[in-house]
């Protein structure tokens, strides 16, 4: 079982980098060489920088109204213009990056473990447990994610946190399916049988031997799903069911800007471009990751 690299493993295979980080560095290197994936990496880097440094970089307070300067077109003072209450759109976009990042982070830490738990348990035990868990997964899969999220938000009440819960509730099934398929491939492997013969409990086998093996593909799948998550969150914000005003969430900004759209194009244009760029970045990155980690694709080259 020493095959599984662990963080604590010393004696690194290559100098400088801990062993667990070598594959990661290789993947990043591969991604960097493809122009489209590199673009994705840059945009995500920018998003994180914006979220962290937003409060420092923002030229204005995102909530500060200036009724003397409403609906101003982009200018030197307000690069992206101002909205109907005179708030600086650039500052609001910068603060919105933190909200987007929060959605991504929270959905990931909820969806990953749930999907992983359902999938590995179904795959490991098989039989009736598998049937029941997969039926439940199928029911959730039989909805487009936005529609199901809409229904959940309707039940829970509109707010950013409820939107995150609703999205998480709809985003775990593909992860569960994937984790199950992975588990099935090495359920019969010798090292699992060995662990079982040593008297390890199912919980211990799943946690120690199966979960680490599923992790890489689950991470890729999560990355690929992030584009959908971002679009769903923005859609909920747009419909007034996600983040509530005056929060500078990008989808909600578009919703309020819609009323002034014909005369003040900048109100909807810039938040829309922000959403498009981030979701495109995740799609390009996911595409590149698939190429990076798919052995079939590697051989074709």
């Amino acid at each position: 079982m020493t095959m599984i690299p662990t963080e604590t493993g010393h004696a690194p295979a290559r100098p400088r980098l801990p062993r667990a980080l070598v594959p990661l560095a290789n993947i990043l290197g591969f991604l960097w060489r493809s122009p489209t994936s590199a673009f994705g990496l840059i945009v995500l880097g920018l998003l994180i920088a914006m979220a962290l440094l937003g409060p420092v970089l923002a030229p204005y307070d995102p909530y500060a109204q200036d009724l003397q300067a409403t609906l101003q077109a982009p200018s030197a003072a307000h690069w992206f213009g101002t909205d109907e209450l005179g708030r600086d759109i650039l500052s609001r976009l910068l603060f919105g990056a933190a909200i987007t990042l929060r959605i991504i982070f929270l959905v990931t830490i909820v969806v990953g473990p749930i999907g992983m738990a359902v999938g590995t348990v179904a795959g490991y035990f098989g039989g009736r447990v598998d049937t029941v868990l997969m039926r439940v997964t199928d029911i959730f899969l039989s909805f487009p994610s936005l529609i199901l999220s809409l229904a959940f938000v309707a039940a829970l009440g509109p707010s950013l946190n409820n939107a995150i819960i609703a999205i998480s509730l709809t985003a775990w099934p593909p992860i569960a399916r994937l984790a199950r398929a992975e588990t099935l491939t090495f359920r019969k492997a010798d090292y699992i049988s060995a662990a079982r013969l040593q008297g390890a409990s199912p919980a211990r086998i799943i946690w120690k031997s199966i979960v680490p093996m599923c992790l890489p593909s689950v991470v890729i799948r999560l990355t690929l799903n992030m584009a959908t998550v971002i679009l769903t969150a923005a859609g909920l914000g747009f419909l007034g069911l996600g983040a509530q005003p005056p929060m500078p969430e990008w989808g909600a900004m578009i919703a309020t800007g819609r009323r002034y759209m014909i005369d003040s194009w900048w109100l909807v244009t810039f938040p829309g471009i922000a959403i498009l760029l981030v979701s495109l970045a995740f799609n390009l990155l996911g595409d590149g990751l698939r190429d990076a980690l798919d052995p079939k694709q590697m051989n074709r080259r």
Partner: protein
Amino acid sequence: MLRNPGWLSPLLRQAGTILVTLLGLLVLTFVIGRLMPVDPVRAIVGEEATREVYEHVYQQLGLDRPLWQQFLMYLRDVASLDFGTSLRTGQPVLQDILHVLPATIELATFAIVIGAGLGIPLGVIAAVKKDRWQDHAIRVFSLTGHSMPIFWTGMIGLLVFYAALGWVGGAGRMDQFYIGLVPDVTGFLLIDSALAGEWDVFRSAVNHLILPASLLGYSSSAYICRMTRSFMLDQIGQEYVTTARVKGLSERRTIWGHAFGNIRVQLVTIVALAYGALLEGAVLIETVFAWPGFGQYLTSVLRMGDMNALMTCVLLVGVIFIALNLISDLLYRVFDPRTR
């Protein structure tokens, strides 16, 4: 033909699976309905009703009974196609939905034609020109379509093509002054106006349809294009393609005649699934374009807390999805000789 049980049992198993999924769907909609922060009795009797009236309606709705009995009542109602009355319109929910559905089907059908018409050829080209500039350009083009927030693209489209250029009609299904001119026969405006011989209305309807349908189509073409590319790559890597090339068949006939013929079945499946996914985009684009269809109905009942209508809408979307999955499965069986 004693092999009947052989092909019958997978069908039976599938029927069982569908039944279980449907039941699960009903549990889900029931739970969502119960969780909604709306008092169904208050919604019916109003704020000023006396205690007696409230109690009466409360019992009439069966809300005093245990949950499992309420669920059984719900099942019974659904089985007899009684989905309750919409609080917003006062009409039976089913009638409401049937009234708005044609507008969405019209939109989605046009969108899928555009999406498939764009996505399939692009996917084939991307596969043939793998790793060349054409492939990269198509990848960026299609992934952009997949990454656009559709409600935003709709607004930008309206700004550019309607407000600035005036090429297309604006919001709604037709120009204001045509509304009510054509009798509502099928609910599909294009068919109705053609039947009535009102070609001005027909033109106006096409004018209004073209922008939202193109945007929806573009967003769904991404998925179709990506899948077409990967199906084609699988085919191109196979030996019969090499053989065809070696024996001197033109590249065009090799690709379109041989390889493409073999992915048609898979494409049908993909297009059917993409059609279902359009419903999601329809919810958002209908809001932007004030399109009086299912998506707008869904968002309006959501805002009103119209429990019966919302539960039915969610149920309907689930059923449509299950049906599309089933249809694509059946088409697969019919068209692919290997599955017979």
